[in-house]
Structure formats: C-alpha cells, structure tokens
C-alpha cells in the first residue's frame, strides 16, 4: 500500500464541503442580528474538504495504527484483552444513544436500569456495598476514591489525617491523585521481592494517616500475601485501604478486594471489562465503597425504589466529579460483557490470564533477566536481557518487536528496575499466538548478541522509524499553523 502522510488541512480547497444540511425555512431570523461586537471575526482555519476525501483520509491514517485487532498487544498493566464486537453493537442502539442526560427518569428507565445493574454487578465482583459509575477513567476514579477517603475523615472531625501511603512501585497516578486531592504522599518501600515491606509500613501508621493505596497484585504482578495483616494494621491505626483496580483481571473468580479488607476501589472498565481503549479513551473508572462510605459517593447517585430507578444528589456526597453521570456508552459495553460471560466464564478470566502470563514467563526466563521468580499473576517484569554485554536496551527490544508485528510490552515501568519489560498477555490470546511471540522474543535476544546494530536501530519496517523526540519537546509544534510557519534549522 502506498505511504500516506497527509494532514486533513493539506486536502483543503475553497468551495468543497462535506456536510448535508437543509435549507433554512426561517430566513427572516438571521444570526447576523447578533450585535457585531459579539460576533467572531477571526478565521477558524478549518479545512474545506468533500465527504469522500474525508473518508479516504481517515481510512488511510487508520492504516498507520496498530490496534488489538491488528495483533498481539502484551502491554503490561493495560490489560489489552479482546474487545467483543457485540459490545459495540449494543452501545450503538439508538434507544440509548438518543437519550438526553437531563430527561426525566420516567423516560430513561432502561438506561438507568443498565447503570444500576452494572453498579450492582461490580459490587458483587468487588465484594463491596455500592458503586458509582460517574468517574471517567482509572485516574479519575482514584481521585474520586481519595475524595471519599478524605470526606470520611472530615465528617468524623478527624482533620489531621492528611497523608496517604503509596508503595514506591505504584503507578504515577497514585501519588498524583493524592496531590490533586490535597493530601500528602508518604512512600513505603518494597521488599527485594517487590511486595510492601510490612516492617517499613508499621512506623508510618500514625494519627496523620488517612489511608493507603495499594494495587494487588502489585505492578510486578505479585500478590501481596500479607494483605490481611496490612489491612489489620491500617484499620487499627484509623486509616482506610484503597484498592487500585488496574490489576483486577487475575482476581476475577479468585478473590474479592472487599473480602481482603479494602474499603474503596476503582475498576477500569476498559481493562477488566473489555471496553475498548480507543487510543487513550474514553474509559470508565467506577468507584466502589464499603457500606459505611456509601453516602459519600459522588453526585448524582443511583437509587432504586420498587421497580423504579432514578438519580439523586446526596447531602453527604463529596460533590460532583462529572458534568453528567459518566461515560454511559462505556457502561453499556461493560454490562454487555458481564452478561455475555456470565458467572461461569467470569471465573475463568483470572485463571486463564494468570496461566498465560506464567507460560510466557517460564518460556523466556533463560533469555531475559527475571528478577522476581515464582508464580506471577496476570503480568510479570523482566529486567532487560539476560546477557546485556552488547548494550542492547529494553527500548531497542521494544522497537525490534514492532518489526515483527507485535505491539511492545510496557517498558521502563515499574521503576524498581532499570530495564523493566512488563508483559501481560490476558486470557484472550491463543497458545499459538503466545508461542510465536515467545519465538520472536528469543530471536531478538539472540540477535542482540549476534547483530546488535540491527536491534539498536530498530524499527526498520514501520511507517515511520525512531523519532526525534528531543526536538519535539524543545521546540513544540502543536498546531498545523505552527507546522506551516516552521523553518527548518540549518
């Protein structure tokens, strides 16, 4: 196929149009009547293109993208599982997409039932009392969850609890969410095995601690086996436990965060519940809480009385975190997924995802350095090549994988290791796909010794090759007009 790299603006020609609008039957009402001082005089710079050109343009640039439907996407911590097509069909039903967010509850009972039943299903899976589906993403759920934590202490008059404990292996959003919530972050160290050091945790637990944020299994794919002791210690010190649901997938059917002692959690519907990542969104980050925190959930809160569903604003709610009630279209997909799998298949998700991760780990551990041995959960981390003598880095390996038709794993995270390669296959990859991936990973490891230059200069076959990111950051070009005005440095 031919290389295509045009921008839509480069197809523009004055007089072309891509829309179809009716004639104005009421021409006597003209917006020209708006006072001139309130009218726009600035050009918008929008392109003028015809409909077929728009279709071909976006089809062509889609060919420059790698999606989960293109190939294996072992991106650790992102749970890139298959996005079922029935989900898309259901989410596009006009009986739902045409609903205005403020139309009376009586006229939106079907949609409200979806919202309510999904929140109840998540509560059952999480072992918690209730869920809000309003947060838009995982990080947004973290923020809403920490607000609930803070509100709980404030409502009890316990105002000195301003600190949140975060493991040093945590996702960057954990400390950032705490900051946005106006709380201070205290890091707790990990043991050499990558789990929370309970002895290091104990002295941190005083009357200024609001709670702890944990991911279990953690970002190394290791289950925190001392979770019950940790929960006991944190609760005894008056704190709450927050569960970052980024790694919930392996626990489906195996255990529930609520049963482990967690008080608040978020779930990434775009990870565990198969909704598409969409190139970075829209996601959905529902937040669940234990019974004593239900009243603090953000507005609007879903209620059911008899057979009737409706939203209310609660007086002790943290407030609102969304303009309306979240990414409803994403909820439709997740609910479809839960109903499609049903209880029998949901319980297999965790097993199959965990087995797949361990299979890849065991198949490659002679070739790549495996810092944490033993059974992992849904993902695991290599610390670069086993033989690093030729200087081939994790970045080089990631780029070389692109040449072989794979998306790269997550790299340089967690930061506990210098050369992290984090691999998560999920439960929807076949043995053959994994075997082919394993063979390619071995081939790259051998190539790194025999022909390191080819690996260090990869990728070679992608639409573009390694990019000059330094210049992009030093001299930002963020709009088409900046690109037009850009004069190459000589």
């Amino acid at each position, binding site marked *: 196929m031919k290389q295509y790299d045009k921008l839509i603006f480069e197809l523009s020609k004055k007089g072309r149009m891509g829309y179809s609008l009716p004639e*104005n039957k009421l021409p006597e009402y003209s917006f020209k009547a708006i006072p001139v001082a309130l009218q726009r005089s600035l050009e918008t710079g929008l392109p003028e293109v015809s409909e077929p050109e728009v279709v071909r343009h976006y089809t062509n640039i889609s060919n420059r993208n790698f999606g989960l439907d293109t190939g294996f996407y072992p991106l650790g911590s992102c749970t890139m599982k298959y996005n079922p097509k029935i989900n898309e069909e259901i989410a596009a039903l006009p009986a739902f997409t045409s609903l205005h967010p403020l139309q009376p509850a009586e*006229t939106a009972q079907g949609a409200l039932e979806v919202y309510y039943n999904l929140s109840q299903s998540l509560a059952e899976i999480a072992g918690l009392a209730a869920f809000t589906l309003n947060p838009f993403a995982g990080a947004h759920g973290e923020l809403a969850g920490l607000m609930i934590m803070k509100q709980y202490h404030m409502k009890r008059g316990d105002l000195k609890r301003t600190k949140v404990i975060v493991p040093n292996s945590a996702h*960057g959003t954990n400390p950032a969410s705490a900051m946005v919530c106006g709380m201070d972050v205290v890091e707790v160290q990990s043991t050499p095995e990558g789990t929370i050091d309970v002895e290091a945790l104990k002295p941190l637990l005083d009357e200024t601690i609001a709670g702890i944020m944990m991911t279990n299994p953690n970002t190394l794919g290791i289950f925190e086996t001392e979770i019950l002791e940790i929960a006991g210690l944190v609760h005894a010190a008056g704190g709450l436990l927050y569960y970052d649901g980024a790694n919930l997938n392996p626990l489906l059917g195996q255990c529930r965060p609520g049963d482990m002692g967690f008080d608040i959690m978020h779930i990434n519907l775009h990870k565990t519940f198969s909704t598409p990542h969409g190139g*970075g969104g829209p996601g959905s980050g529902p937040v669940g809480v234990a019974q004593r925190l239900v009243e603090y959930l953000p507005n609007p809160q879903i209620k059911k009385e008899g057979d009737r569903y409706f939203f209310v604003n609660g007086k002790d709610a943290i407030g609102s975190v969304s303009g309306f009630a979240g990414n409803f279209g994403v909820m439709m997909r997740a609910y479809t997924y839960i109903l499609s799998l049903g209880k029998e298949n949901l319980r297999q998700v965790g097993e199959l995802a965990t087995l797949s991760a361990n299979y890849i780990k065991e198949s490659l551990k002679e070739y790549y350095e495996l810092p944490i041995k033993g059974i992992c959960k849904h993902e695991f981390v290599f610390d670069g090549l086993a033989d690093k003598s030729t200087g081939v880095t994790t970045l080089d390996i990631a780029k070389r994988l692109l040449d072989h038709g794979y998306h790269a794993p997550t790299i340089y995270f967690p930061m506990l290791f210098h050369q992290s390669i984090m691999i998560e296959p999920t439960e929807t990859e076949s043995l053959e796909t994994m075997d082919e991936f394993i063979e390619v990973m071995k081939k790259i490891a051998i190539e790194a010794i025999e022909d390191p230059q080819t690996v260090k200069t990869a990728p070679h076959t992608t639409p573009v*090759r390694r990019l000059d990111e330094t210049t992009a950051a030093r001299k930002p*070009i963020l709009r088409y007009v900046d690109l037009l005005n850009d004069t190459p440095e000589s």
Partner: protein
Amino acid sequence: MHNYFPQTDADIATMLQRVGIGSMDELFAEIPESVRLRKDYDLPSSLSETEIREFFAALGDKNKPLTCFAGAGAYDHYAPAVIAQILLRSEFYTSYTPYQPEIGQGTLQYIFEFQSMISGMTGMECTNASMYDGATATAEAMFMAVAQAKKKNKVLISATVHPNVRAVVDTYALFKGIEVSEIAEKNGVTDKADMEAQLAVGDVAGVIVSTPNFYGILEDYSGYSEAVHGSKALLIMHADPSALAVVKSPAEWGADIACGDGQPLGMPLNFGGPYVGYLSATKDLVRKLPGRIVGATHDVDGKRAFVLTLQAREQHIRREKANSNICSNQSLMALYVTIYMALMGPEGLKKVNELSYSGAHYLLDELVATGAFTPAFDQPFLKEFAVRTTLDVKKLQSKLIKKGMLGGIALGSYKKGMEDCLLFCVTEKRSKAQIDQLITIIKEEML
C-alpha cells in the same frame, strides 16, 4: 470454552506443564484461603448473542424516544453518517495510547488535527489531546491558574456558568484547598462590577466565565481581560466550540485559557457520555497544560511524524509533584469531533449556527405569541434561551413528554427564583414543523 477464550483443554495442559504445576488452583496458592472465593459470583449465567440482543432491545423499550428541545450542556446536533463508520475502524478504537509512535501515527496524527482545529475554534495557541468532559476541563483550567499564580489561591466563577460545571469546579477546589467565590449575575449576565470589586480584594488567581452562558446568552466580555489581567489573574472562558464558529472566540475576548465540551460538535447525547473535554491556552501556559499533548517532529529518515511531547509535565514523570493526575484523554471522541469539524468546515458550522439561531428565535416568538411565556432576560442568544411561563411547569413538561417531546429544562432546580422558568434549545435538527407541533401541544395545554 466461551467464544472469547481460545484455549483448548490440551492447550491448558501444555501451559500447566511448562509452568510446572498440576492445576489452575496452584496459580493462586499464595492467596490466603480465608479470602479465596470458592463459589460463583451471584450474577446471571452467560447469555448468547441472540439473548443479549433481545435483552437490550427489551431494556431499550423502557426508554422513551423524545424530540429534543433541551440543551443545558448536551445538544442534539446533526451527525454526518461518515463519523460513526470511521469510528468503527478497529485500528483506531482497539489501540492504546500511542506509546509506540512508530505504529501509532494514526492516533497521533488525528490528535494533532484535533489540537489544530480546537485551537482554531478558540483562537488559542495550544490545545491538549483532550480531557474527560467540559466540566473537568474547567476544573483543570482552575488548577492551571492557581499553579501559574503560585501564591494566590482563590478563583472567581460567574453565577452564569453551567451549574453542573460549577459543581465539579467546587468539588475539585474543596479537596485541593482552593477558595471559589461566585460572581453575582444581573439580568442573566455576569455582574462586572461585582467581579471588579472581588478582584480588588486580591488573592485571585483566575476568573471563570462562559460563552454562551448557562442561559444561552452571549455575554459582552468587553473590558474583562483588562480587569482580570490588571489583577495579575488569568481569564478562563468556558465555550461551546460549535457556537464559536460565529460568536466571538475566547482569544478575541483576551482569555488566557479556553475550555469546554466538544459534545455540541455533532456528538450523540448518549445519556451524558462519552463526550470530550477540551483545554486550550496561550503559548506561555503550554507547560502548565495537563494531560497528553502531541507535537510534530520527524524520524531518523527525515519523514514527518507525530509524537506525545512535553511529557515532563505529566504524572508518570512528576508523580506527586504533577499539577494533574490525568493520564489519558477521550481520544476516540477527539477523533469524532475532528472528523465532524473536517466535514463541516467553516461554512457548514456557520450554517449549523444559522439554522439553530433561526429555529430558536422563531420558537421564542411563537412561545411569546401564545401569551403564556415571556423571555426571562432581554439579552442576545444563539440557540438556547430561558422563558418565564404562567403555566404549571411540571404539568407542561409531562404533557409534552406524553406527546413525545422533551421540552425545555426546568430551571427551578438550578436557580432560586426561577421556578417558573424553562430553558429551551433548538438545533438545526429541529424542523419548522416540529417547532409548530410543540407550540400546538402547548396551546392545547392552555385550553
């Protein structure tokens, strides 16, 4: 095995053997037995695709389709057929954030186009890769202003900003420890004198206003940027990007930050989401912008390419020192509005506004002609307006719904003293015949 799981029993046996264990259960041996789930979830059994279709068709029947004369932050504009089709290209929708730019140019390029187009609409110099929605974008704009001001910790927000946006700003501010103070409204618009008085008190980092405002009014913000900048604060303008095709842009008003929701750019109502927030700013605030930003660059062969840039601002680098915790965007929805703006172009968007304006002003005249309605404010508006009525608001709404119409939004639950007010909206999707039908039903109610 379920159709989503490719593993056969033989595959599972092969994998167990490689891992060196005898059963699946051993994969979870380290989980304390007291918390192991030894039963199925209390959830329904698996449904087949046919059953799924029947299930949701039945649920859909519990919703009532209505002809929409409501706005208040969610607008029923026309969506060209092209958009939904392109959005189903799974190269787009099944991809992740473009961390590997060599195989993510499709996403990176449309985000660059999105940033370019939104910057064009707002008139601002830079735009990020999108935000969750208009309300959270406004809250993040507040954070930018406070971060820029360094030691000032107060933000003023006009009473004419949408109450739902205000609620999110209030929540974010409360927990972050920022003080929010309301600027009074007067005849449906921001009371400039009140703003100036509050600015004079000092400690103000930013001022938030909107265009069109909650009542659909086009406010005259002459002199605002001078007053706000005179107090070394930033002017933040929440704006409907569709309306910006014809109404004065945030840049023309002298705003430092523009924010809002892309929903009016032809996005389905979808019961409130997913929509797409946007956040634009002047050039000198670029390093204060939260979230993803895409920049142009080139590859080692000199080919033009796009990449996530200025990442030193973000949470995965700065962790607790970051100014925002956002680590995604509404990428696919940004693609939606990008295709929309490409199709509509400057002329199409002008026409959308012209048709909406004509319909809305016709509806107002017809409502007034019934004798039961008067304009709530004597102010210029585009597609949305508030009216007072002598009719019983609740009864009128029920009557309209019975006839398949979503009439105006009752303002009583948002604003004290407006219990007899309705907020109507007319977009280019509403025909003259539909407006006439609405009036006929209202006249019946008056009998």
